[in-house]
């Protein structure tokens, strides 16, 4: 059990979600085990396993700047926090807030939702299968709150409705943001790749680089490379920084269904490969690109509120097209809009979701484009708030 706890604690630290070891993990089979059995919170949280049908739990105070943001949103929330990003809309629905770190306060909330933000304490999340569920949920809550805080600030800044407290929090959070990526990262493997071993290595290397650079958390993206009429793509629910054995070969001629476990964005990747000249595709959810994609100046738009499904305008952020689209293949699936938007453009941002970039031979250029788009969006964001 200790190995399992260590794996997820390491992942949380590596993704900047917690400060070293500062999380309590619980896993129940026939008996309940804790990562830190001496933590007084064990006694508080153990009843959750008795009263809820769960087998895993994570309780942690997120690392900065997440915690300042989350606690600010929680302290000011009347009812659940309702971010508008894709992760929340699709998987979390909303983020309920608890007043106390007690079983009595948490159980009614966790009966309905996968997470609870506890004012002054942190985040509690659970799973019914493995620790991966609360880990992914924890990461998603941090991401969603970050996006909401900065989106709200920009909106209020533009409308002139900011209060002093929020400005102060904003300044404090901004000071804690990691430095932007200013230098080119170490070179990735050079393509084109024709044999499977080389291209699998290149995919794993690029995926890890994206996470190591802090561009995205490990569960927020997917990656593919096409060679010999086979698209090799990361599996659904895989971690970008740990892709060994998590890449599916999908023949372009559709002669195999082995890709049934491929990323939910397989259709978009296939469309890009078929409609452009690229071989390498990177998709991630860098925060400022997502935030700016939701900043629209059109007033009185009849489609407001459903921008993730449809937008009648040709929108651009930092000269990068912004398109609507939901996860996967539904009628509003991003697979319908992303491939054609990528023609002759360095990348495309999906509204409230993330960025796709491509390259002709290997992942170097795709990664550089991803970095550049996020850097430009970050600069543009702060320009806009200053103007506001």
């Amino acid at each position, binding site marked *: *059990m200790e190995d399992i706890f260590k794996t997820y604690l390491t992942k949380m630290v590596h993704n900047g979600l917690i400060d070293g070891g500062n999380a309590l993990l619980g896993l129940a*089979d026939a008996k309940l085990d804790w990562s830190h059995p001496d933590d007084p919170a064990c006694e508080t949280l153990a009843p959750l396993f008795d009263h809820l049908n769960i087998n895993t739990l994570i309780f942690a105070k997120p690392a900065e700047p997440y915690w300042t943001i989350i606690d600010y949103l929680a302290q000011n929330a009347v009812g659940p926090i309702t971010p508008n990003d894709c992760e929340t809309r699709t998987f979390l629905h909303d983020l309920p807030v608890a007043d106390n770190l007690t079983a009595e306060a948490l159980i009614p909330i966790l009966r309905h939702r996968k997470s609870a933000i506890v004012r002054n304490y942190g985040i509690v999340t659970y799973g019914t299968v*493995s620790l991966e*569920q609360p880990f992914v949920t924890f990461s998603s809550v941090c991401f969603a709150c970050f996006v909401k805080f900065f989106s709200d600030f920009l909106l209020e800044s533009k409308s002139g409705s900011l209060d002093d407290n929020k400005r102060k929090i904003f300044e404090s959070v901004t000071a804690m943001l990691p430095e932007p990526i200013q230098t080119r990262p170490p070179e990735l493997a050079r393509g084109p790749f024709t044999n499977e071993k080389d291209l699998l290595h290149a995919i794993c290397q690029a995926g890890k680089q994206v996470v190591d650079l802090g561009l995205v958390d490990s569960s927020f993206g997917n990656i593919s490379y096409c060679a010999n009429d086979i698209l090799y793509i990361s599996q659904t*629910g*895989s971690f970008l920084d740990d892709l060994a054995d998590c890449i599916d070969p999908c023949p372009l001629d559709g002669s195999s269904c082995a890709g049934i476990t*491929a990323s*939910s964005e397989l259709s978009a990747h296939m469309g890009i490969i078929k409609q452009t000249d690229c071989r390498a595709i990177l998709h991630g959810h860098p925060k400022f690109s997502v935030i700016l994609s939701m900043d629209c100046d059109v007033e009185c738009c009849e489609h407001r509120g459903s921008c993730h499904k449809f937008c009648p305008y040709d929108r651009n952020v930092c000269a990068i097209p912004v398109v609507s689209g939901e996860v*996967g293949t539904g009628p509003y699936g991003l697979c319908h809009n992303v491939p054609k938007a990528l023609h002759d453009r360095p990348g495309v941002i999906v509204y409230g979701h993330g960025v796709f970039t491509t390259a002709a031979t290997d992942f170097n250029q795709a990664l550089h484009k991803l970095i550049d788009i996020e850097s430009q969006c970050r600069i543009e964001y702060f320009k806009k708030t200053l103007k506001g």
Partner: protein
Amino acid sequence: MHLAYYEKTTDAAQQRIWTFYEAIKSELKRITLMFGWHGNILRIDLNRKSFEFDTPDPGLYHKFIGGRGLAGYFLKNQITLSYNDPDMPVLFFTGPLVNTQSPTSGRMTIMSRSPLTGTIGDSSVGGSFGTMLKKTGFDGIIITGCSDQLCGIEIFDDKIRFVSATALAGQTVSELNRMLKDKGATAVIGPAAENGVRYSNIMIDGHYTAGRMGLGLNLATKNIKYITVKGTGKTPVADPVGLKTADKDIFRLVSASPALMGDHGISRFGTGALYDLMDARHMMPTHNFRKTRFEHAAALNAPAFHKRFMPKSTGCHGCHIRCKKISSDGRPLPEFESMSHFSALIGNPDMETVMAANQFCNDHGMDTISAASTLACYFELTGKHPATENIMALLSDIVFQKGIGEQLGQGSAQFAQNFGFPETAMTVKRLELPGYDPRGAYGMALAYSVASRGGCHLRAYPVSHEILRKPVPTDRFTFTGKAKIIKLQEDVNAMADSLTVCKFIFFAASIEEYANVYSAVTGLKISGQELMKIGERICYQERIMNAKNGFTAKDDDLPKRFFEQPESCTDTNAPKPINREDFLKARAAYYVVRGLDEDGMPTKEKAEALGLI
């Protein structure tokens, strides 16, 4: 076709008054208390050719929901009777979401005691029967007694007719459905059931199978050849706007699911989409589970079937996933289990034989998994070659109980025992195992062993996380943590079978989203966690019923082959035998989390805590 029919024999005037009174009572209850359910259950007594309406307390619906849960409640007092005792009921139950706009809710449960396993025998089945039944104003049907001659039961709203079906004896499913096509949804049996095959099915609308448990034989012992149902009513929904919102959340998640709606998902290819993956993961049961990969798999996968048979998609009533595939010549494409077992399990490389065997079983009302598995056992024991003509001739012999077919029709456990090699039957509790080799997924191993209806993949469906990576991936080669995972997933699936919705949608949505659907339909505010608690009650009720029939820990076990026999090939990636000690530890852990004693028996304390005593 000309069908003679006879009305029921009770006093007609008295019956009409009573029926009117019941209808008023039922309508009052519906208006004041019930959304989602009608509050009416149809009880049919074949001994007297009579029927009556039962209006259970709403609390019973809240406690067991519908489908598998409610059917189990009405079965429990008769569960120790033999499957062919006239008092043994056959139950058809829908759930509160059926005949509403709830996603994938066009399903129902059929239940009785299984002639094959002796356990409770239930099957969740699609098609339009569940929806039509709900449209008649009934939540379920309970059939007891035995007709003195082969009969049909025809239901049109609240009118019930008993019809002689003696002229239909021996008719195949497709022939019968052609004759009944104007009578609404159909549930029929084929010659396999009439001839006593213990794994015979009830076929819904000609193509949808209430399979695995031998429920066709349950109907045959009551002398029922068919049931038709046609209704015109609506199901009241408490909060239509809330339902629309809840539906949207689920549709969004379904769109995001590669396994359901992806380029290689089951919406496009049917459940056959799993074929490549099972082979690639060394989980394809091959040559009666003596190997885990099939050398001809690439030529027999779902894309190959689609290329050859150019199917169109169809599906259960109200489902947008539409996983059922019908070939251009009108034959159903085999589901994954049938594809796998009629090819790899019996060592057959011929695609047309897979199609023909599947079609033959469906048309004669016989379970494909058990039929193929019994053939695989036969081929192993006799050393005979599974050529096309052998396969089709043997299937025919089983259906018509000729020669060796008479023994094979009793299932592989009985056949292997008769042959003197019981260990060659790949069964749990006498139910033949489906298309996932448990050596490649330890959660599956545990789930097979403890499933209340025997070697069933659907009770906990660990393939979802061990193979399809949903909701998150788990390590398929460890038992660590699996006991509680299996227990929790059993609870969720018991709930799915009771609502009644398709389990496949839980590749994408969770019980959290379905709680919102349930609340909107019924008006009862409830959380996903509370629904899971009801699922736990339903599972425990089934353990109690099995315990009454003598099932203990010794029955919660896998065939020895999985613990002892290394695969007979040189592939270094082939899975190793399961460590028996680890398996037994995991099973003991399951008993703890399920609240059973060390012998897998239910306890009074737990039963009380779950409101079952």
